[in-house]
């Protein structure tokens, strides 16, 4: 017994030594900044002066009433819904195609994966040129068929949709790989058994593979949801939230407030508001998705 205790104590010590670096880093770079953002959100502070004025919950009251913030939240929700609706089915379709096709389709696997390898900033610049109204790819192609220039990023009614399409272009490969990994988790025996029992490929996919992939789809949906709610880089590069505020997201709004408007206190409030909103939505969604499973 004493040997067992000794071993446990040793394991604990070893574990704490191994965990220490991670925990320290997480405390410094995650826990403390979150605490400090909440702290700053109670001050009026331009971000560069030494003094800050404590103003209680004034920033939070402003945030509740700030129509710009809620408009950007709405844009985030649009991105979220369309991302889930577009990215996951297409990702699943590509993964299914590759899974059924086997080795001879490896070429597609590589080509389709490429967008994910590029940095968002590069993707943003690439599409800014490709979608340019004068001399861009889309406008030029339309020109061949006698159409005029198409203003995709400068028209407030189209800009958000255009950017969403680019986001999908970039992230569909991620879900493709995600579902391909999920497919490898389905034992080959199951496939064989279903074929022996006379199932067609379509039946196998609908009645066997799909139910087995549901857990993967759920976590993919949550990933996509959180990803779209905190989205920043591509929008910042492509439109900067414009034209006007038609593609403004919570994260770009936060950035604008903090670093362009010299309004760090309020910017921190926006960041904390995002944190609360995203956590709440993620928790509720997870609850909803898993509720069916409990009984």
């Amino acid at each position, binding site marked *: 017994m004493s040997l067992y205790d000794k071993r446990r104590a040793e394991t604990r010590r070893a574990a704490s030594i191994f965990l220490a670096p991670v925990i320290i880093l997480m405390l410094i770079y995650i826990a403390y900044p979150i605490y400090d953002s909440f702290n700053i959100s109670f001050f009026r502070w331009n*971000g560069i002066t030494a003094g800050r004025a404590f103003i209680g919950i004034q920033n939070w009251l402003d945030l509740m009433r700030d129509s710009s913030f809620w408009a950007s939240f709405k844009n985030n929700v649009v991105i979220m819904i369309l991302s889930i609706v577009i990215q996951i089915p297409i990702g699943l379709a590509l993964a299914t195609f590759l899974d059924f096709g086997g080795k001879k389709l490896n070429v597609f696997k590589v080509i389709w994966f490429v967008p994910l390898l590029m940095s968002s900033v590069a993707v943003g610049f690439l599409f800014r040129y490709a979608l340019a109204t004068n001399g861009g790819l889309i406008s030029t192609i339309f020109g061949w068929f006698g159409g005029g*220039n198409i203003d995709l990023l400068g028209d407030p009614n189209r800009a958000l949709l255009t950017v969403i399409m680019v986001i999908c272009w970039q992230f569909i490969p991620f879900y493709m790989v995600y579902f391909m990994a999920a497919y490898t988790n389905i034992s080959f025996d199951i496939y064989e058994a279903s074929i022996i029992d006379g199932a067609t490929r379509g039946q196998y996919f609908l009645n066997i593979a799909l139910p087995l992939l549901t857990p993967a789809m759920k976590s993919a949906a949550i990933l996509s949801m*959180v990803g779209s709610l905190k989205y920043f880089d591509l929008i910042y590069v492509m439109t900067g939230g414009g034209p*006007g505020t038609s593609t403004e997201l919570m994260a770009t709004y936060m950035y604008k407030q903090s670093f362009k408007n010299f*309004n760090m206190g309020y910017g921190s409030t926006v960041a904390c508001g995002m944190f609360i909103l995203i956590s709440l939505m993620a928790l509720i969604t*997870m609850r909803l998705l898993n509720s069916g499973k409990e009984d």
Partner: protein
Amino acid sequence: MKSQRLIAMAITAVTALSMTAGCAGGAGSTSGGGTDTNTADTNAATEAPAVESSESKEIIFWNIAVESPDKEIISYAVDQFNANTTSGYTVTQIPTQNDTYKEKLVIAMSSGECPDIYTSWSGGPMNEYIEAGFAQPIDDLVNASDIKDKLMEAAWAQGQYKGKQYSVPTYNISISGVFYNKEMFDKYGLKVPNSVSELEAICDTLVENGITPFALANASKWTGSMYFMSLATRFDGLEPFNAAADGSGSFEDESYVYAGEKIQEWVGKKYFPDGVNSLSEDDGQAKQLMYQEKAAMLLCGSWYTGTFQTDSPEFYEKIGWFSFPAVDGSSSDPSIQIGTIGDQFLQFNITGDKLAAAFEMATYYSSDDAIKLMVDSGKIPPVKNIADLVTDPVTKDILDACLNASSTQLWYDQYLPPAVAEVHKDTSQELFGLTMTPQEANAKLQEAMQSYLADK
């Protein structure tokens, strides 16, 4: 199932956290840096930074000179200083692209990493930097130096705040005006306009001939602001703006309604390129339209002379310039110019010997050789004898407009406090996108101005 759920939960938690950590990271380190400078500023500004300066003999100089000819001009003084100085210091310069620079500087300051010398456009942001203690007064150094009498009074005045000199003007007088393609004007029998209605007649002729009248890349927002400022100023002079900015007037004044309505009328008449709000100034999409001869005019800052000259000396031959024409029937003085006298102002975030060394570097910008280099590359350095130095015909026109101006107004987006300036740029972009009426846009701007004045 349980483990799946756990994994999902863990992933969510980590992604959600990393988001806030990313943005709060800047803010977090801010407080640390802020307190450092805190002690330095509140006391007589000499003590704390002096300790720092004895540690390092390197002076860090941030600027926006990434492209020719600015690159050569900025480097000139730095190289001269490093080669000739006896102060024992060396200057290292770090250039950053224009729009990125403004944000990079704020982030650096908020984390206590403010460079020793940095450039600004003066106006509202400069005042914020000074208020925050990131600039030192240099009156003594200026008074002792021979560049005090060399540079224009107006240029020095633009670098002052609350009666003290904080900034050194450097290399360019820039005013807003219209560059036009002379060949195209000849081809269609057009003449330089004296009134807005004449300008509109020119635009109509150009549109009929399939040419875009104005090259404008308004994704950058401040570019469209040029039209707003010019129209409002020509409608009723500078009084409405000064009143609106100090709170005694309003941005809902009729001159801003006029500016907004004109812009929207012009958008409707196709005076601007398709997708104007998606074109980016930083990517050079406005000047490309000029080079491709798809557009005939460009209303922008006069720094464009240097840009045209560097990009294509042949194309520059075709370029002419005129000041924005008068509004028909307005009594406003059409000689008023909008722009900056001595653009790129240097602020110094150091003290003692190091400040003296940095100032010595800044004086090289006013040396005869540097001035010659500036003039040769199409700049208009803010020196008193500038009229004798300029020979280039376009630059001469611009200079005449400057020297004859009854007054000069700094760019709105630089003069206004940053939070209001951002709203101004957003609303002027909305005007071009026809997504707001002039009344809505002006009301929004006025609201931002009022909330700034209320917080002050």
